[in-house]
């Protein structure tokens, strides 16, 4: 527990929050980088997943991708991309995109797929175009599961962005790896505590968003427990 006290002392030391080594900067880098990865994953994964869910074509692809991706070690991708692309943000961006895409894709697909086909048939019968069916029927009903997928991806990206520092010296992994190099356990522990706290906060925020979407999709039922996310993890 003494070690925790020292790590906390490091965290509460004003000097840790000043200058170019400020932990505040690291948090902003961490969040900014994670957001970029997540936006890219959403921009690719949501349309693709919705399309697969709507047409019912390419299901096998989603299943193969999500179960196969779980086995791929992200640190391996990160280092091989790091060697190929050099030091910088490109390698971790690509490695984390590979990590974030499957849950987003699976969430979007599963959400749309689960929409009652009779509801879709009814929408078609009253003259909605396919585009309207997707936008005004399937998407709102799929939202809780779809957001569950994004939430799962967000959690994995925030966690694994810590590893990005291994090849690019950015984010909250930076104090951790500095601590590793210097054999300074308190600094490592302080970074670890901060990253754990950040993950928990992000998780709680997404939980709230997901249950809000659940209430909107089915206002008359008791909101489903926030269990719609795929139980998978392949992260740091």
């Amino acid at each position, binding site marked *: 527990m003494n070690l925790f006290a020292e790590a906390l002392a490091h965290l509460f030391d004003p000097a840790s929050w000043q200058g170019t080594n400020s932990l505040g900067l690291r948090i902003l880098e961490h969040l900014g980088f994670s957001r970029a990865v997540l936006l890219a994953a959403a921009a690719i994964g949501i349309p693709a997943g919705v399309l697969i869910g709507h047409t019912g074509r390419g299901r096998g692809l989603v299943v193969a991708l999500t179960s196969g991706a779980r086995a791929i070690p992200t640190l391996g991708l990160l280092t*091989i991309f790091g*060697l190929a692309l050099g030091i910088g943000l490109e390698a971790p961006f690509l490695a984390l995109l590979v990590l974030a895409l499957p849950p987003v894709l699976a969430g979007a697909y599963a959400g749309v797929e689960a929409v009652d086909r009779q509801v879709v048939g009814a929408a078609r019968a009253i003259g909605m175009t396919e585009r309207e069916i997707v936008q005004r029927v399937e998407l709102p009903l799929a939202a809780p599961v779809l957001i569950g997928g994004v939430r799962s991806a967000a959690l994995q990206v925030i966690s694994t962005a*810590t590893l990005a520092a291994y090849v690019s010296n950015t984010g909250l992994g930076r104090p951790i790896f500095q601590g590793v190099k210097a054999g300074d356990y308190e600094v490592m522990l302080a970074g670890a505590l901060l990253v*754990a706290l950040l993950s*928990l906060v992000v998780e709680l925020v997404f939980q709230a968003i997901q249950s809000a979407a659940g209430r909107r999709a089915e206002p008359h039922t008791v909101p489903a427990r926030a269990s719609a996310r795929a139980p998978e993890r392949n992260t740091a």
Partner: protein
Amino acid sequence: MNWLSQNLHIVWSLLLDHLWLSIVPIVLALVISIPLGWLAARYPRARTALLTGTGLLYAIPSLALFIMIPAIVGLSARSPWVAIIGLTLYGCALMVRGAADAFGSVSRETMLAADALGHSPWARFWAVELPLSGPVLVSSLRVMAVSTVSLVTIGAVIGISSLGTLFTDGFQRGIDASIITGIVLTVVVAFAIDAVVLLLGRLAMPWQAAVRA
């Protein structure tokens, strides 16, 4: 291929490290998750506490967890037990929900029928609840096993040796072959352990195959 043939003995010993760092946490997490999942399925209050707890645990990055464990249990930071404890905790975080769903899927009528036949609660668990929840248990065990194998590699950045060491070494020395060997072997180990789990599940539940056929 040249690199691999020159470093075969290192790769082999890292592979063995990786295997036991995977198998021990998978088995421990399974053994711990079954009673916890059973409790969560039978007692709503335990359910809330256990699922919230494991959900939050799951949100902590594994690297952060690996770093915190030595401070909590007083181990050396590079001890393989750090990875074993951390991965066991993660395995439970993944599996308790699956186990709760598995035991929750056994219908009330079935359990009442078992009671009526004179099963004690203990016998009912072994003869009725566990076999009936088997298929769901196996499918969440497979997910947990595969992600555990992949997560073992993370320990390499803090000096716990596994196939992940091929990533950190390969990166620092600029050897592509080392990293690619590590990725391929990790995926192979994951699929091999998955196949073993599937096979053991079929052997333990021969009636499953009969139902499917």
